[in-house]
């Protein structure tokens, strides 16, 4: 009747917050999960993201290990899908970038030589749509603002000590995203009768991630 195994909640966060993460917490004792600690104090083990799949690339030929890049309005998430994520691997085969996708993933932090690389291990990937993406952005903006507020109250000493995050910077980034979303939504409402192709609404800028320090593998 009551399952005692605890399932981790899928956290909502933007790539800017995720990619600035440098520390892990938890993992003490065999059963305890490992969490990526973000500069805004989120402890995440599982995340849910809706964004644009921009790249999928096999790391080595015939390795069945795929590097993927998914953007949100603030940047992009790096992810790896291999045979250890069979469901995600299956669906990825049928998806060709660029495409809006929803992703449920485990959050990981690779650590080598004083550097850390946050990345995603998707559990499932599915084609989504603009409406879902917009709602995800809204929901994620709300969750991020809530975290900023909590930190301003000075509640999370560990995060303040480890990261001393620039909260104004994060807040400004969230407000920018919301203003852009408002602009797009106003356009959509104006054009709703014509049903034209909607603009992507954010820049798909290239970003090169240097993986030379990291051995990517399981």
């Amino acid at each position: 009747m009551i399952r005692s195994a605890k399932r981790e909640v899928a956290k909502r966060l933007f790539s800017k917050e995720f990619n600035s993460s440098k520390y892990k917490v938890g993992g003490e004792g065999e059963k305890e999960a490992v969490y990526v600690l973000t500069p805004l104090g989120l402890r995440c083990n599982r995340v849910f993201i809706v964004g644009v799949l921009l790249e999928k690339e096999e790391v080595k030929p015939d390795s069945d290990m795929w590097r993927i890049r998914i953007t949100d309005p603030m940047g992009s998430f790096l992810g790896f899908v291999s045979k250890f994520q069979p469901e995600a691997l299956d669906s990825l085969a049928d998806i060709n970038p660029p495409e809006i996708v929803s992703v449920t993933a485990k959050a990981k932090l690779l650590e080598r030589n004083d550097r850390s690389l946050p990345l995603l291990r998707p559990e499932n990937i599915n084609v989504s749509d603009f409406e879902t993406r917009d709602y995800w952005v809204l929901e994620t903006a709300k969750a991020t603002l809530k975290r900023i507020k909590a930190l301003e109250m000075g509640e999370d000493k560990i995060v303040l000590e480890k990261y001393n995050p620039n909260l104004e910077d994060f807040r400004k980034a969230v407000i920018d995203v919301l203003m852009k979303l408002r602009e797009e939504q106003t356009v959509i409402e104006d054009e709703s009768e014509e049903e034209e192709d909607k603009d992507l609404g954010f820049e798909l800028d290239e970003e090169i991630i240097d993986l030379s320090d990291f051995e990517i593998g399981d």
Partner: protein
Amino acid sequence: MADDRFQAIVEEIYEKFKIYGVTRKEIESRLKLLLYEFKVPEEEAKKTIINGLRKNYNIAKSDLKPPLTKISEIEPNKWVSLKAKVIQLWEPNSPAIAQTGLIGDETGTARFVVWAKANKKRLEEGKCYLFERVVIDEFMGLKSVKVTSASEVKEINENIEVKEEKAEVEVVGALIAIQQNSGLLQSCKICGRVVKAGVCIEHGKVETNDILRTRCVLDDGERIYDLILNEDNIKALTGIGLKEARKLAEEHLDRGIVLLEIKKKLLGRYLRVQGELRFRSLTANKVEFYRPKILEEVEKVLREAEA
């Protein structure tokens, strides 16, 4: 002194000591003596009786715990002790909270909060605990049990049967996983259990009925719900009913195709579900894709953020 005030004091002391076998009569006679014959102030009389009883029954000060109470009887602002099972843990939304969730006993369920400052060992879902010296408060009409640094929490080796409570709820969340045993399934004609390859674990090789069902996980970023969608729910969302599912399976000579189609249409989507919540299990009465008024919401959040 009014009679009801007198009785209230007796009752208060009795609650503290009843587990040690103290009778009301004993307390009454001492209180009468101190109050009416020696004209001692009320508070002093109370203190004296409590100290006296502690000495008589050899009870250490730290052992004098609030009475064991059932969840259905807890009242705001009272200190109590409870034996309860941890039903569910939820995501704390403040670092001041170490753990939060739902506990229950045979009389009902209540929310609980363990403050980070209380510095307690972590509770686990499904285990039973004795919560001593916890305080009850009321938040938005719901009673909630607070574990503070003054409280003691011990795991107990007994199983508490929790009274099942159902609640009508409306939840908006993302459907982030679809679990095994979903899609076009076969159930045993005798017991209704799902069977694999026509063999029921109870009844062996049996005749079967086709059923369409999906077990999935709805996640709103703070809490998780095990959502069960029946044939009507699935049809309303995906257009695939039992008839369509059978046709799909026949065309592809594979029942698995039904689950794949359902996954394609539902995974990663936001749903609004009205249904019945039993602990974490949500049974949908009405379910639809969530279509929020994004522009309105964005403006609201912006106003708050810029304020």
